[in-house]
């Protein structure tokens, strides 16, 4: 049995989550997606605790991170991931409605791997999510499990 590494989607808005899943379904990658509804849940997943205490070990292949989320927001999650040597290699893609310069600058400063503004138009949204899912979930070669820099 091949263990398929999941895509982690952090999205507090259930409709956005459903639309994203619908978009990924178009390319048959939806079954690999785990949806978290706030930042705290994302951290629970990454550290295998809370409701995710019994999940299979291993990092997701990519994290799609919304900026504005209840409890712990996207930038805080991003900071936590990039400050943890174990989680640092996970590619993080900011997927947000905000085109504000400040958000862009902060995200990149904290080490985001990509920043995507959700288009209003659904066709474009599908195209964007599909491309992201395919690129990060299929094309991109994830870092080896448990990889740690030697230095």
């Amino acid at each position, binding site marked *: 049995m091949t263990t398929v590494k999941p895509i982690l989607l952090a999205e507090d808005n259930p409709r956005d989550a459903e*639309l994203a899943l619908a978009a990924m379904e178009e390319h048959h990658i939806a079954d690999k997606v785990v949806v978290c509804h706030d930042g705290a849940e994302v951290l629970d997943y990454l550290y295998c605790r809370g409701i995710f205490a019994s999940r299979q070990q291993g990092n997701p292949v990519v994290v799609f991170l919304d900026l504005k989320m209840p409890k712990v927001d996207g930038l805080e999650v991003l900071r936590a991931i990039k400050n943890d040597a174990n989680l640092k290699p996970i590619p993080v893609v900011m997927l947000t409605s905000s085109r504000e310069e400040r958000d862009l600058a902060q995200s990149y400063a904290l080490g985001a791997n990509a920043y995507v503004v959700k288009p*209003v138009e659904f066709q474009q*949204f599908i195209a964007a999510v599909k491309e992201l899912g395919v690129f990060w979930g299929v094309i991109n070669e994830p870092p080896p499990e448990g990889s740690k820099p030697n230095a």
Partner: protein
Amino acid sequence: MESATQEPPTTPAPVHSEPVSHSSQAPIPKTGWLMERFAHWSIEQRVLAGFGLVFAGIVVISAISYRNTSVLLENSRLDTKSHELVQLLGSVEEALGAAESGHRRYLVTGDESYLKSYQATVEQMPEYLRYLRGLTKEGAEQQDRVEALERLITSQLKAEAEAIVQRKKRGYEGVRHLALAGAAKNEIEGIHRLMTELDTAEQRVLHARVEESAGSTKNTIALLGLGAFLQLVLLASVYILIHHDIAERRRVAAELQSRGELLQAANKELEAFSYSVSHDLRAPLRHIDGYAALLSKAAGETLNDKARRYLQTISSSAKQMGQLIDDLLVFSRMGRQDMLRTTVNLDQLVKTVLHDLRLDLQGRTISWTIHPLPNVSGDPAMLRQVFVNLISNALKFTATRLEAKIEIGAGPRNSGETEVFVRDNGVGFDMQYVNKLFGVFQRLHRNDEFEGTGIGLANVRRIIHRHGGRTWAEGAPDQGATFHFSLPLARSLR
């Protein structure tokens, strides 16, 4: 002064706004007319008039005081002369008395030592008389008296000299009658009377002058007091004016500061607002379009044409609103974003804009005329937005033309600014509505004619204004339109 009534003051008095049309009404008493004229004056003019009056008063007082003081000095000179005259009269009388008694003693005794005092008087007398003439040359009456006195004195001395000669020739007996009565009894009486007259007259003049001087001094003191008072008034007004001015400046500065703070707070709020718009308003739109698409996909086959059209309308409305929000965000960002200031090569800028728009140009026949453009100073990204908007507009409104003609060029450089224009042969506009062109959400065409959100030109105007330039346009229905903007020349580029 007449022109003051013809032309209103350049800065009208803000406080005293009495009715202006008084002069055309029934005649007003003179004071009323003056008051009215005064009411028309600005604060500066009133202050100037007040200062002028006080200043003129001080000048007049100074002039009078100067004149009074001159009179006092002149009087004091004359007083000295009068005193000298009185003293001199005494000396003359004494000398004459000495001569008289000397010659009589000689006549009686024949002792020549008594002639010494007589001789001294004879020798001194011309000097005394010259002195006397000098002291009285300013008064005709006194001069006449001095002349008479001179004649009498000369005659007295002559008579005495003759008596002395007689005594020498004929001895005591020859001059016996003279020795008892004196040689010049008549003259001496006349001399005495004249001397008294001279003395009295001089004393009278002296007394009058002292009175005049005292009055003049009192006058001068009063005037100087008034002058000092006026100067105090002047100083006090200057102090009050300066104090008022400083207080006013402080108040304005404080107000400016508080307004600046308010403005900053408002700007922060606006930023938060547009952030919220950017983030929260777009999500529901995304959902509307998304679910409409999902619905059409899930049930598309079972829907009739009408229902499918409804779904399409929902979807396109959502897209339109999304576009509106995006444009509005750009507009708001253009207003608060920090501006760069570099030299921008407009030729290069237009080339890249045309390159970016190439997808919109497909299937169009467009004849471009692009003249050389100047280098300007400004924010490259913002100026790029200006050209994107203007060229997109030109493309949009020439869509109905078989051959679109678009011309981009620069006007002549004049009075420190550069002018750039974008001209098209599109549907144009009615100059009647030219003022609406650059307003936010102002559109001159129905949406089914030409799509648009009505923000593009508003953005152009905002960007150009932030650069310190101007925007304007001209056109006619179906005759094309020309959009101009000007940018101030940076000194280094001139």
